[in-house]
């Protein structure tokens, strides 16, 4: 295993941008096709009526809201890895940060689609905007859905900035190495980057500011998502634990998503020299911590409900624990807790393969977790006469499945046009210089002192 430097970093990491193999087109065609199928399915849903989904009285939320929470959860990969690791200046973060930040942006875009897909009248979604209309009607600021709207948009803007800022020097590298139209496009994207000390200083400061700012935003986003549930008087929903439980679950699934993405990138873009087993091992340890935290939250939630012994809650409790939803529930426990605990807890299994297997378990488990929060409770509210079931239809399955293809497609396209590993940060790691590491002293901080 070698640690590449200088020109080799450039050539290795810019190769996907300048060389296009037939496999790229094949991937784009396959995943683009699946995304197209999802789009057509959604248009068919709008055209034929919402009844083509499996939603029915009284389970009015199903696959779409599950997927919404799931994808917003995945989006927490970028924040934790990137922002926290930047702030503590962990050296091993350098090849990982951009993979993570990209996941944040794309998963948020996909997640934010679901509230619109799930609307009965999606063409009126703009009523959530607080725009001055001639009727002077504003959105209802008491509604957690409106909080969602603001939280997700804030997070999206923040994470796009957080992604784009560290790309600027890399855009400049691509600009300098290309000609013609490509040079013009990347030149515009590089925003006149010349690499002067002043520019470096401003960039570092901006990244620091964003890294600090994005963490509370990320925490607030998934707390607000959890408010969608905990603000309603529905059995097993109305609980104070949901905020931190959702945030922990989000970071958990985000790390799993990041591990899978890194393994795939390593394999397909031949980044073995950049993404080392140690990166997987470190992230695997984080996954282990989050698995324990998740287990702690579930244990809390379940035990408190059990001792509270409120009849409506206990009915839902037993539904998931022992009755019709038990197979899904125990699959979730195995995927989210048992599997990561064994694979990440025992050093021998904490390999790249082990990380990927554990991550797949977590992804499946976290998706099921959201499903098990939503559906059993809604189908089993207070009056026995109005108990009900939910069964997804192909429409929902196709649309929910197509978003996974959308994520892959966006990732493939991004890796095609932007170096997926931060070139300048990697080089800075090789030759740390005062201007390239986060400033530590008053003089270096200058007027933009944090």
């Amino acid at each position, binding site marked *: 295993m070698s640690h590449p430097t200088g020109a080799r970093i450039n050539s290795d990491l810019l190769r996907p941008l300048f060389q296009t193999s037939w496999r790229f087109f094949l991937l784009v065609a396959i995943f683009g096709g699946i995304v197209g199928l999802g789009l057509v399915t959604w248009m068919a849903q709008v055209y*034929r*009526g*919402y*009844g083509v989904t499996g*939603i*029915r*009285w*009284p389970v*009015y*939320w199903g696959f779409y809201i599950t997927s919404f929470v799931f994808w917003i959860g995945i989006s927490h990969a970028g924040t934790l890895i990137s922002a926290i690791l930047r702030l503590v200046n962990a050296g091993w973060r350098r090849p990982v940060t951009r993979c993570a930040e990209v996941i944040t942006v794309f998963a948020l875009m996909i997640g934010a689609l679901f*509230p619109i897909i*799930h*609307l*009965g*009248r*999606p063409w*009126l*979604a703009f*009523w*959530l905007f607080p725009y001055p209309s001639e009727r002077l*009607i504003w*959105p*209802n600021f*008491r*509604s*957690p*859905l*409106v909080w969602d*709207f603001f939280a997700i948009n804030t997070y999206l803007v923040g994470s796009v900035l957080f992604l784009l800022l560290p790309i600027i020097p890399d855009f400049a590298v691509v600009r300098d190495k290309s000609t013609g139209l490509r040079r013009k496009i990347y030149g515009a994207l590089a925003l006149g980057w010349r690499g002067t000390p002043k520019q470096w200083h401003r960039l570092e400061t901006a990244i620091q500011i964003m890294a600090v700012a994005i963490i509370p935003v990320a925490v607030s986003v998934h707390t607000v998502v959890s408010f*969608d549930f905990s*603000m*309603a*008087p*529905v059995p097993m929903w109305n609980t104070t634990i949901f905020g931190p439980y959702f945030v922990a679950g989000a970071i958990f699934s985000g790390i799993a998503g990041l591990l899978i993405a890194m393994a795939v990138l390593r394999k397909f873009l031949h980044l073995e020299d950049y993404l080392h087993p140690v990166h997987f091992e470190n992230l695997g340890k984080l996954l282990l911590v989050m698995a324990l935290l998740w287990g702690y939250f579930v244990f809390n939630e379940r035990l408190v409900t059990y001792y509270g012994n409120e009849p409506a809650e206990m009915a839902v409790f037993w539904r998931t624990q022992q009755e019709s939803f038990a197979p899904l529930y125990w699959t979730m426990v195995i995927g989210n807790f048992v599997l990561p605990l064994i694979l990440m807890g025992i050093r021998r299994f904490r390999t790249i393969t082990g990380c990927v297997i554990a991550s797949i378990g977590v992804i499946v488990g976290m998706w099921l977790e959201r499903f098990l929060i939503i559906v059993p409770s*809604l189908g089993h*509210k*207070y*009056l*026995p*006469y*109005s108990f*009900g*079931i939910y069964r997804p239809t192909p429409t929902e399955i196709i649309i929910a499945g197509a978003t996974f293809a959308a994520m892959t497609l966006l990732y493939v396209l991004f890796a095609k046009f932007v170096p997926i590993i931060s070139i300048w940060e990697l080089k800075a790691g090789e030759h740390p210089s005062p201007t390239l590491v986060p400033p530590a002293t008053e003089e270096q901080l200058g007027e933009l002192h944090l």
Partner: protein
Amino acid sequence: MPRWGMAADLDRCTGCGACVVACHAENNISTVGAEQAAVGRAKHWLRVERYWEGDFPDVRLKFRPVMCQQCDNAPCEPVCPTYASHHTDEGLNAQVYNRCIGTRYCANACPYNVRFFDFFNPSWEKPLQLQLNPDVSLREVGVMEKCTFCVQRIKGVQIQARAEDREVGDGEIQPACVQSCGARALVFGDLEDPESLVSRLSRSPRGSKLLEDLGTQPKVNYLSRQSQV
């Protein structure tokens, strides 16, 4: 300002379902067909819940007509992002169909499950389309709908009374379910007026409210069943 409420005497309710039919007819509630109804898409703003008690052969059948309870502290209202679900001055939980974007959050928050979603555009089996009520708007696909206490009838009587320069009398306003109830199990009226029949019934020691402990402050009073038959 009146505060509209209802009392349902479970001793009188025979479970005949006339109220359900009358509600459908009055409020232009579209029928969805047997197949969709079996899936769980039937829209009964008012339903008669049936509960069996005891073991065979000592089985008792209980009926409970359940409509929107018009809660004073309604969980459906704060969660709506567009104010489609809101509280009127007269204490009704109004639903503005044209303002609804179909998040269905209100229906999830409602502990009584009395809110219904339009999964398709409305249609009626012939010749039912000929009996549509011109006073009630049709709901297009993707909106929530629910019991309004027949707000069109309330408004109609109020306008008539104002034109005749008089107060609305007790019992003058009759929602479709109340009007059609052969056993007179349902009584509608103003809870602010202590002398109205609904107020007097609501003070009955037999009275209780559905899921009262959730703090929703419903305005429908159920008079518990006492007969042994």
